[in-house]
């Protein structure tokens, strides 16, 4: 049987879902819409449990709420449930019963999961289940409590006890989405009915929770509130940059040796080259970012579970709004510091289309983790290791400056887009501030697992596909040019008396130069010359369309150094690299210009693909590609011309 799990946000619905399905859950798409559904098997049965996005009413007010209306009003929908379990927050009964009553009135076999009864009791509320039963006679009503984890067996009993014959599906009363007058009437009528019910069922002697109120006084305080938020941000970045580097280095090193090992095991041939040089590094390039994404979502999930994140939205809305954004844009923009893909997807919670769109369009301007290897290499190359005012590390300051430049770009573009994009609706923020709770680790880890999986699948598909195309462009050339290049390199190596490995690198370098990729680089050289780049940098710019960090590896190939063996080697080679006129390629001017280019350019196909999916058209990803390209080109040009 198909069982839907619905309920208001912040009712502990996800906790219950995790409890009931355990690790056997999957994320999939509802057909026709972009919102993810989670589904899993109810432990101890073979019932399929589908977790729906939290909603206050069957009538949707934001993108992610639409699916509930679409499914429950359409018996032909492939996800139309046989049974609906509605999670009801006992400590906030009236507003929760509103949604329950709508579902019950549809004639769907309904189970009420009366959750958070412990909090309700603490508040001094006692729920008289008998009265609820007399109001909803056909429904099964069970008390659950996800925080301490009891109730699973009673839920299974309730499913079996449900008398399906008592229910007849009927949706004549459901208003169309446009019929707001009808919906208003319905709201009034329902709350009147519930008024009578809740007075009967709930002994209202709500004690004000002093602790919660005091926390709010501190956390949204004009000084302490912001100070605490910035401290949280600081710790978050610390975790992403410092702690995540340990597992990242580990993954990086292992994939490098895997690539070498497989190339030694497999016989020579085009297909095997594709595996060792295209696919394995492609997969490694995806997996290396998993630790940062995991750390980021670990933090975000803890903040969300504890109830603090809603306060951040509350605090930041005032600063996001003048930019055409929403307080809720904070989460997508923060996520984009690790990776824009989960960031763009997190924008779904923003109800207003224009605010959501601007958030999606500017999110990739936040410097993501794939830019770090590029920044680090270029800073080491052109920024001297010295102290400013005796205590500020200049290299560190430049790195900070690049992040800041991205944020400035996002602010500027938001303002421009706010002015350019016209919308009949005005954005709004109507947000519940849930009560503070201790995070439940089960849920936190589940979120981390889910986000990492989404990243690996979404980014992985695109990055690997592009890696294959790029591998092809770099491994083949017009006519006999590659064979000629190889012979040429071997002859040179012989003349110079190079060792076997040195010879191999020279062969790789010259082959790349005469490949299609090399031709492409040379073809675009006049275009990028005003920015201070030569054709070798041009090749690396193209290859980094798979993912920005590929820039480093592809430079290493062109300069024929093996970066794994010798990190200093690449730097030394790059420093010695000369133009035709004898001047060095990498100067302060061209280095800074390149860093600025990476701050702004949309060098990530995977993000473009996700933006297309989220906005359901090619228009917006192309707009994004265009404005980021213009920003990157013109600002790099400006920096180069100023510094040269």
């Amino acid at each position: 049987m198909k069982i839907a799990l619905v309920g208001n946000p912040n009712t502990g619905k996800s906790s219950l879902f995790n409890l009931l399905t355990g690790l056997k859950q999957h994320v999939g798409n509802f057909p026709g819409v972009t919102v993810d559904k989670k589904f899993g098997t109810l432990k101890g049965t073979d019932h399929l449990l589908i977790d729906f996005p939290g909603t206050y009413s069957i009538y949707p007010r934001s993108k992610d709420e639409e699916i509930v209306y679409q499914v429950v009003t359409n018996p032909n929908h492939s996800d139309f449930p046989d049974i609906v379990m509605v999670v009801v927050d006992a400590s906030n009964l009236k507003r929760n019963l509103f949604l329950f009553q709508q579902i019950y009135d549809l004639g769907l076999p309904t189970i009420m999961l009366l959750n958070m009864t412990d909090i309700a009791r603490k508040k001094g509320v006692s729920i008289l289940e008998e009265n609820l039963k007399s109001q909803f006679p056909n429904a099964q009503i069970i008390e659950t409590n996800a925080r301490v984890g009891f109730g699973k067996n009673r839920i299974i009993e309730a499913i079996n006890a449900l008398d399906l014959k008592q229910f007849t599906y009927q949706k004549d009363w459901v208003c169309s989405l446009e019929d707001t007058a009808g919906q208003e009437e319905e709201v009034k009528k329902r709350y009147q009915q519930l008024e009578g019910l809740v007075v009967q069922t709930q002994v209202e002697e709500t004690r004000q929770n002093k602790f919660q109120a005091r926390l709010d006084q501190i956390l949204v305080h004009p000084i302490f509130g912001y100070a605490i938020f910035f401290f949280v941000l600081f710790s978050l970045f610390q975790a992403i940059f410092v702690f995540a580097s340990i597992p990242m280095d580990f993954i990086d090193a292992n994939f490098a040796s895997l690539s070498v090992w497989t190339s030694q095991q497999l016989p020579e041939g085009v297909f095997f080259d594709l595996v060792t040089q295209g696919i394995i590094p492609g997969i490694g390039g995806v997996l290396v970012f998993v630790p940062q994404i995991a750390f980021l979502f670990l933090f975000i999930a803890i903040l969300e579970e504890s109830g603090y994140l809603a306060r951040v939205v509350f605090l930041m809305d005032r600063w996001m709004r003048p930019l055409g954004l929403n307080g809720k844009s904070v989460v997508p923009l923060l996520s984009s510091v690790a990776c824009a893909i989960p960031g763009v997807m997190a924008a779904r919670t923003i109800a207003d289309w224009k605010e959501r769109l601007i958030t999606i369009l500017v999110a990739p301007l936040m410097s993501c983790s794939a830019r770090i290897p590029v920044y680090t290499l270029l800073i080491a190359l052109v920024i001297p290791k010295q102290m400013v005012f005796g205590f500020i590390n200049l290299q560190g300051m430049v790195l900070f400056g690049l992040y800041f430049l991205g944020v400035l770009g996002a602010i500027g573009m938001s303002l421009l887009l706010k002015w350019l994009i016209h919308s009949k609706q005005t954005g709004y923020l109507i947000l519940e501030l849930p009560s503070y709770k201790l995070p439940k680790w089960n849920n936190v880890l589940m979120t981390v697992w889910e986000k990492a999986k989404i990243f690996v699948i979404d980014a992985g598909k695109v990055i690997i596909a592009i890696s294959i195309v790029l591998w092809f462009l770099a491994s083949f050339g017009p006519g006999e040019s590659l064979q000629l290049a190889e012979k040429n390199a071997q002859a040179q190596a012989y003349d110079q008396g190079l060792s076997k490995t040195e010879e191999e690198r020279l062969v790789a370098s010259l082959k790349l130069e005469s490949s299609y990729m090399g031709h492409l680089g040379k073809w675009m050289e006049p275009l990028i010359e005003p920015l201070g780049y030569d054709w070798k940098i041009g090749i690396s710019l193209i290859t980094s369309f798979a993912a920005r960090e590929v820039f480093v590896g592809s430079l290493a190939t062109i300069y024929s150094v093996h970066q794994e063996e010798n990190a200093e080697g690449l730097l030394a080679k790059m420093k010695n690299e000369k133009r035709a006129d004898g001047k060095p390629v990498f100067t302060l001017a061209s280095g800074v210009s390149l860093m600025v280019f990476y701050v702004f350019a949309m060098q990530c196909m995977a993000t473009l693909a996700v933006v297309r999916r989220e906005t359901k058209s090619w228009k917006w990803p192309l707009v994004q590609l265009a404005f980021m390209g213009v920003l990157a080109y013109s600002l790099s040009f400006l920096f180069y011309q100023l510094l040269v």
Partner: protein
Amino acid sequence: MTNLAHISSVSLLKVIRLLDSPLKTKLMEMGLLEGQEIKWLFQAPFGGPIAIQIQDYILSLRKDEASFIQVEPILNHHNS
């Protein structure tokens, strides 16, 4: 009678009327119906959103949304 956006200190209020706006249904679903008693709790710094208590939960909304909600203070007879 005044609108909710003009309130700036902790006080008990009664919703008198919701002005017409595209958000009216949403606000009603969230429990803001005529006659509902609410409590103004706090405001985000620098003119940000406000937070009110409705029934048993806290709702935050921007001042723009609050200005659609006409309220009347409930006089506390114990203190006056």
